[in-house]
């Protein structure tokens, strides 16, 4: 306060202008905050009105379903290990969908990224085209492709695999091309000077430099894809999501099986999260695997 007083004595116009600016900024911030609050509240009310059940009456019921699942699972706890074994193959399928789509999508992303990086691309004119193509791949939600493919190919893991792989190719392609931009061009030029063709330059000059970063992003994507693969199973694409839908929509009496699936899914997601974060830590901190 004393400081402000001295300042206003020495140069009243500057201090007044400063305080006016602060006031203006506060008013501006206040208006923004008011708009934001209005949007949140108004939006919530609209969403609630379109919803089958309201928020306040529904709130006490949130725990009803988990409680019913837990109660039934506890009643039949002797069977739980049996159910876990029973659904384990579906879990493997879900993980396989995620793994193979990460693998295929990742390999496609390497190619797409090399074609969309300035200085490396084989056809520099095509860079914007490849980039827009990746944008579209990323923009289409997996569920859209999966549902259309289920119509064509029938249910099962393949529609989910293709859908997730396409999305992965777009998402990783963008990240990979950002990595490529930071790659040193020395090795590429060296290879070019001994007459290596484009494929050799990329495979021997670029990929070894960036492979740890690629792997790190691919692992992160793998985590995301396990979740996506479970969700796509829920709409009919095989794996543990499909079993989950069956056990919870067949009405009462199967919640013990649902509990087993919940446990499997939760354990899988947490395990792979931990595993991939350990590996990524090692990769980024430079220690060889």
């Amino acid at each position, binding site marked *: 306060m004393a400081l402000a007083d001295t300042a206003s004595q020495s140069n009243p116009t500057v201090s007044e202008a400063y305080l006016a600016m602060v006031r203006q900024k506060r008013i501006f911030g206040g208006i923004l905050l008011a708009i*934001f609050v209005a*949007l*949140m509240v108004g*939006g*919530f009310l*609209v*969403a*609630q009105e*379109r*919803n*089958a*059940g*309201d*928020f306040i009456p*529904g*709130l006490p*019921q*949130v725990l*009803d*379903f*988990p409680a019913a699942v837990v109660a039934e699972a506890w009643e039949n706890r002797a069977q739980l290990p049996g159910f876990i074994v029973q659904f384990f193959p579906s879990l493997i*399928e879900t993980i*396989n969908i995620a*793994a*193979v789509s990460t*693998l295929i999508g990742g390999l496609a992303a390497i190619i797409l990224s090399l074609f969309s990086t300035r200085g490396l691309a084989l056809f520099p004119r095509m860079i914007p085209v490849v980039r827009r193509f990746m*944008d*579209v791949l*990323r*923009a*289409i*939600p*997996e*569920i*859209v492709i999966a*549902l*259309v493919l289920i*119509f*064509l*190919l*029938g249910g*099962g*893991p*393949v529609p989910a*695999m293709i859908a997730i792989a396409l999305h992965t190719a777009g998402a990783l392609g963008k990240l990979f091309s950002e990595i490529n931009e930071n790659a040193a061009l020395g090795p590429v030029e060296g290879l070019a000077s001994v007459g290596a063709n484009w494929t050799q330059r990329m495979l021997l000059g670029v990929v070894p430099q960036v492979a740890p970063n690629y792997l790190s992003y691919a692992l992160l994507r793998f985590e995301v894809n396990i*979740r996506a693969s*479970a*969700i796509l199973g*829920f*709409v009919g694409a095989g794996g543990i*999501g499909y079993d*989950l839908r069956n056990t*919870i929509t067949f009405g009462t009496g199967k919640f013990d099986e649902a509990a087993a699936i*919940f446990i499997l*899914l*939760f354990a899988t*997601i*947490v395990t792979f*999260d931990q595993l991939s974060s350990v590996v990524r830590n090692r990769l980024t901190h430079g220690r060889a695997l």
Partner: protein
Amino acid sequence: MTTDVYVEAARAGLRRKSLTAYGIMAAIVAYLVYIFFAFQIPQLLRNVDADNARILVADSYSHKVHVTRDNRDASVEVSIEGERKGRYPTGEAPEWVTLGQTTIIDLEDGHVVSFGPEEIRYDIPGYGLVTARPGADGVNATLPSGDVPEWINASKNRLAITTEAGRLTITRNRTEVFRYFGGWELFWFTLDSPYHGLGPIALASAALSGEAGAIWQDFWHNDMWRHADVAWAIFETILMAFLGTFGAAIIALPLAFMAARNFTPFGPLRFAVRRLFDFVRGVDGLIWTIILSRAFGPGPMTGALAILLTDAGSFGKLFSETLENVDSKQIEGVASTGAKPMQRYRFGVIPQVSPVFLSQILYSFESSTRSATIIGAITGGGIGLLLTQAIITQKDWEEVSYYIVLIVIMVILMDWFSGMLRRKLIQGDASGH
């Protein structure tokens, strides 16, 4: 001597490296082969429904007009896609159909089908005349002599002819001609609107002479495409993403302070909050969606809450990591002026972290739009619901492709919008706070 040793060592190193590379490749190939059989791809390839694929592709960019004759009373009806909403009023037909005692349908390129009082005739260029007298005793088709080509499917009670001009199907009770046209049918106006079939210039002049409101009404409440409902569904999807993302941020912010080492020296609390974040993220969005829709029923609010819960977990983690990296000098500086704890947060911490937080929130807003489409398909809200409904009918593929285009545009726009805001934030930050 010594150089030989080095050369040998270098060669061994290269051999080992190339062995590793080949090993990785072999592992990938082996895994793909395993998947090939585990996913039963050979069997799948045999079962691919080529017809479905053709219908899907053709339907997504073209439409067909049905001319249907009821064989019991010889009445003729014309409708677009065979839908009630697309039916021409009685006595009216497009110009290639001449209604009368004998209805003549011109499929162009010389293909002409006529529905007589008794007899159906189809003159196929390069093949000959096909006639049929459908009745209670069967189709009674007469084909030109010779082998029946594969594009004609004839039996006692059914005759189907598929040519490049169209398709004719005759059963005992019904005769149907399909003619295919490019584009989406009735996208702008349905047949009952006076503006159907007008060109853009005629429409513009009508709009200028005071009919703009009526034109907009007819377009917006188009029965076939339901533009108003689709626009609302898109809005609902974005609303779910907005409420979910920003709601999650509001909830995660105070919790993140509790999970950050430099703000919460009390270990057990930190541990509990962190495990809470891990739990919320580990119980996947799918499971949250199921649990919440049991409590709140289907709808956009359930979707928004599901996004909120999943996002809150990841925001909590991201925010607390950001908070652990804040520069303590600014806080000390503010503290040295005698600021109380709240003021230290307000002036020492928030200005440092708010651009980072906002950028993280905006980034996930865009990806939440995509999640909202998926969650909407499960909980029944927004464009995801419309999309699954259209796919389940297995015939409205033009609507499916329309929704897909809209979803892609929506996501790309959100991507662009959030990217623009983030760039603004970063620039605004660089120009001084």
